[in-house]
């Protein structure tokens, strides 16, 4: 039985680098999240649907070449046909164009309102976390006051003061919504400041910018992306509801909410006038919801399985 002795081995080459080499590629948090999102067929499907919808709200109104406001009474209340893909409404306007213009308005309103919410919320939250102390207390109290009025109440009140226009609608929609973002950002930053790795980075001499970019931003982006995905459907809902109550946009501007309330009137005779706006609205909202779910799973490492 031959014993293994050290003499039987020889060094074939050794470097420090080799010892520290990581064979598999390093995956950053975002790459990891994206990889997991890609594996989620539902989320990817939603992403594709949203892409198609985005294209449609941009080019949709131009496909058939009908203006969304021009009336053609001779061809009012038409059903689905090759000429009018979604039919026409009771003033003879092409519903296909109108639905996409309406969806565009709804989306723009939702996205702008979300952007306002995110920007104000982040800045406000960061201020709270940064200054702390009495500033934090006062700012927090303001949030509590705003949150103590049911948001729809406040929205309607604001619409009453500012009138029925796009600006008023945006203000009214975002006036309460940013509070939640601000709270989350504040909580996140406060929490991060206490974490070991931020502390370690500070001790290791990382510059504030590096800490912000490498630690704060990625963590907050996760929250903000989720916030966006849930806020957009909510804004679309609220806008549709306000338009239904008659306190939304004013003509000739249309949104999906306006189309739905108009379609309701003709529901008995021309259901397509209600069906198509509803369908598009539901698809948009559903896509955002499913994407949001997918993002939540992808961004939360605890759910990795």
């Amino acid at each position, binding site marked *: 039985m031959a014993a293994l002795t050290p003499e039987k081995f020889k060094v074939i080459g050794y470097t420090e680098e080799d010892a520290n080499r990581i064979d598999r590629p390093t995956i950053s948090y975002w790459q990891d999240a994206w990889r997991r999102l890609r594996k989620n067929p539902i989320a990817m499907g939603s992403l594709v649907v949203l892409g198609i919808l985005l294209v449609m709200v941009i080019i949709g109104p131009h496909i058939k070449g009908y203006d969304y406001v021009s*009336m053609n009474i001779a061809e009012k209340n038409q059903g689905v046909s090759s000429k009018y893909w979604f039919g026409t409404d009771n003033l003879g306007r092409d519903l296909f164009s109108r639905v996409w213009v309406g969806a565009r308005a709804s989306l723009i309103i939702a996205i702008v309102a979300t952007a306002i919410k995110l920007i104000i919320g982040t800045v406000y939250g960061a201020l709270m976390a940064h200054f702390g102390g009495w500033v934090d207390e006062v700012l927090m109290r303001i949030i509590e006051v705003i949150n103590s009025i049911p948001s729809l109440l406040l929205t309607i009140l604001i619409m009453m003061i500012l009138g*029925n226009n796009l600006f008023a609608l945006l203000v009214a929609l975002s006036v309460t919504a940013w509070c939640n973002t601000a*709270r989350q950002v504040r909580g*996140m930053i406060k929490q991060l400041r206490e974490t070991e790795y931020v502390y370690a980075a500070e001790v290791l001499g990382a510059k504030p910018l590096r800490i912000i970019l490498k630690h704060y931003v990625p963590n907050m982006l996760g929250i903000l992306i989720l916030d966006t995905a849930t806020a957009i459907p909510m804004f679309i809902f609220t806008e549709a509801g306000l338009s239904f109550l008659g306190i939304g946009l004013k*003509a000739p501007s249309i949104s999906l909410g306006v189309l739905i309330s108009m379609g309701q009137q003709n529901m*008995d005779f021309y259901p397509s006038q209600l069906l198509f706006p509803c369908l598009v609205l539901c698809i948009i909202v559903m896509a955002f919801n499913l994407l949001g779910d997918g993002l939540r799973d992808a*961004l939360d*490492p605890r759910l990795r399985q």
Partner: protein
Amino acid sequence: MKYNSPCADTAGSAGEGLRKKGGTSMRKRNKVVSLLLAGCMAAGLLAGCGSSGETQVATADNATAASTSTGAADSAATDSAAPETAGEVDGQINLRAVAFGNNFDVQDMGWRWMMGECYEGLMRDVADENGDRFEYAGAESMDVSDDGLVYTFHLRKDAKWSDGQPVTAADYEYGWKRLLNPEYGYSYSFFLFNVVGAEEYYNGQGSADEIGIKAVDDYTFEVTLKVADPTFQSKLVATPLYPTRQDVAEAAGDQWGKDWTKCVYNGPFAMTNLVEDNSMTWVKNDQYWDKDNVKLNQVNWYCVAENATAATMFDNGQLDVFDAAGDYIAKYDKEVEAGNMQTMTTEYPGTMVLCYEQSGGGKSGLMKNVNIRKAISYSINREEMVSAVYGRYTAAYGFVSPAITLDGTSYRKQASETMKKEYEQYAGDADKLKALFQKGLDELGITDKPEDITITLLSQGSATENQLEREYLQQSISQNLGVKVELNTVGDYQMFANERDNKNYDIFVGGWFSDYNDPLDFLNVMKTGVYDSYGLYSNSEYDSLIDSLTGENDNAKRLEIYQKLEDLLVAQDCGVAPLYYSDKHYYYQNWVKDFYTSSFGASQELYRASVQK
């Protein structure tokens, strides 16, 4: 890397319950949790069962539900004399209104279809397919002196208010004099200006005692006119000439007519409940002199803005009468042919017009110019508008409604469609319309291009029909004239009136619904100073023509002057642009009997109606 849902404080994240919360407690599984939980679950399950069980009950019941009719409004009659719940009351009718008024002051004529049923004047106007007829109501008979100046009304002695007090001549005297009291500023004061001393009193030059309105005794009421007036009798059905109880009105002070609980009623029905913007209940007035002929015990009104909702209610028997529009007319006509329902279609003395701000020219400053006004008016295709927007009504080219008669025949049959000829020269021809508009701009010395000009259309209401109407007008005008049309849309009449009085508009759609059967009632509206709510048209020639009618008893001559007036107003000056003549398409269930309408009173006249299921 760590990622935690930052949901430490959920207050405020109400809508976002989807977000999961991290971590749960390891050990102390609190008893409270399970207790609360059990409570919630049990209650929830109970409610769940309850409502699903009820579904079946409702399903089984619903064939009869209509007859027992447990309406919200019926049972809403809580705190008053009204029956406590539905089901106990037979003879209920369920009706729909697009909007409720908020005015119970008869002199103010805020809310005619309610006042015509809950109050009563000297006469009542009732209509069926054969047209309107006047019946004596508060009066039993009337004497007119030979010179046509003195009217003596013999009041019925059994008429009573809902609190049991008799309706006396003093109530009429108070009501009529109240109408003339300048303190209250009633819009309808001019109704009585032809009465001796009335206008003087209104202008602060005479006293109330000098007015020729007298309660001779409790049941004799005498009115003395300055000059004989053939239209006076037809005014008697209008609510401003209804009686008012002095003690009650004065007790209510400045809340008179605003708070229905402070009112007494002398009509067939009395208001017992009002849920703002929602529902309203009237019950039969037991003190009413003709109560034996009033067969309904209760009238339930629902405030439903949208036709589609109302149609659904009508379809499932929750409504007994439906004033249909659009495609519903064709649908229900078929049902009528099949014998499933009844119908009554009548003309209704109302004309909707486009009003221009003519005092200052409006927000754009252009509305003073007649060619601009005409260009706007002619760019609207009325036939198309009535079919597409309303699905009913008749395109209007004159101001006076076809429902108004003169000498027993429709005024419109005797007069031409005033502006139709000129309209047809321009209709549908965008170039000609633009040229007309440009001509107006040149006359005003305005060099702006049409596309830089913005015209403001003031409108109110959020029902689909309101939306369609304003969009149609907006599109028609801007497509034909190349101008921008901006909408100034407000929520309700109150704010509409605010905007109108502040002149924040160029044009708006207004309407006149006649109070008595004479073309003068329409034409007088546009006389300078009578109403400032129709765009402030003012033409001295027009005013003097109206004045020349005073004392004119020859109907042929009157017709001539009426036509001149209308021609001046509509065709030459384009002071208003007529859009459509109103009408009513009532469909009612087979179990409703003796349903009438009224052109100048309650549009759904129920004083004889009954429900026989």
